[in-house]
């Protein structure tokens, strides 16, 4: 595992996010169909993808925990999932704003990604309820890890289910976001995605450092009193 220095990561993050925003507002062409509001897409979709990355990383760390029983893996899993929920909430919010801008409604059940995120959001919020309900220790770490793994398996299963459900909820509505992008749009999208992944990495490391510091301070207190 490459341990990137946090300051370097934060600097890279700042640079990438700045670059992404500049590209989004000054370079990306205005979409022919959706007009100016299409630019929300450049953050909305990468945020969603980053959220999946968070949950995936959390599940990976959960698996590591179950294999090694190393407390640190449990903490890393928790922080990753915490970030995933933050990005997930942002997905729902930006998606909702985009829906309002595009179709005039704050929510659309025919938007597969939004509905999937709602389900995942519910699932992973319950993760925190689980963690708060059980005393810290190996039992809680075990259960959290199992739940995190269930979550990551639920992602494709739910996606499939939601796609099936569209047939009896709505006729499928065609939306023009997806891989049908022009070259310059795709470039901006990639930069934005890289920026948000770096943001996740930075926030993740900061939160992890904070939690580890917390644990050390607590341990120190116990040793001194």
């Amino acid at each position, binding site marked *: 595992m490459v341990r990137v220095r946090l300051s370097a990561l934060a600097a890279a993050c700042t640079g990438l996010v700045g670059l992404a*925003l500049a590209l989004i507002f000054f370079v990306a062409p205005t979409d022919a*169909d*959706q*007009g*100016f*509001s299409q*630019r*929300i897409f450049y*953050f*909305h979709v990468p*945020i969603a993808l980053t959220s999946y990355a968070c949950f995936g990383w959390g599940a990976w760390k959960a698996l590591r925990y179950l294999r090694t029983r190393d407390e640190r893996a449990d903490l890393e899993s928790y922080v990753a999932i915490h970030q995933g929920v*933050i990005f997930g*909430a*942002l997905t729902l*919010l*930006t998606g909702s*704003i*985009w829906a*309002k*801008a*595009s*179709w*005039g409604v704050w929510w659309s059940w025919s938007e597969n990604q939004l509905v999937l995120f709602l389900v995942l959001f519910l699932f992973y919020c319950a993760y925190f309820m689980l963690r708060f309900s059980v005393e810290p220790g190996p039992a809680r770490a075990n259960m959290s890890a199992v739940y995190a793994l269930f979550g990551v398996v639920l992602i494709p299963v739910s996606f499939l289910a939601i796609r099936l459900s569209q047939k009896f909820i709505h006729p499928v*509505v*065609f*939306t*023009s976001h997806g891989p049908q992008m022009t070259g310059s749009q795709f470039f901006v999208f990639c930069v934005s995605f890289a920026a948000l992944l770096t*943001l996740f990495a930075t*926030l993740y490391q*900061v*939160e992890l450092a*904070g939690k580890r*510091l*917390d644990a050390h*301070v607590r341990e*120190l*207190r116990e040793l*001194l*009193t």
Partner: protein
Amino acid sequence: MIASSSPPSEWQYVAAAYLVVFVFVLAWVALIAAKLGRLQKQLGELVEKARARG
């Protein structure tokens, strides 16, 4: 193809979306900063205790 309604305040939605992201990240930074402050204070107290022990 859905015809977009092109409301007059279209840019405001875009701004709102990016603003939401910005606010979330800033709020998170604020929370971490508060936690850091608390930890610094606790660490200070513990250092005092350790010094008192000698």
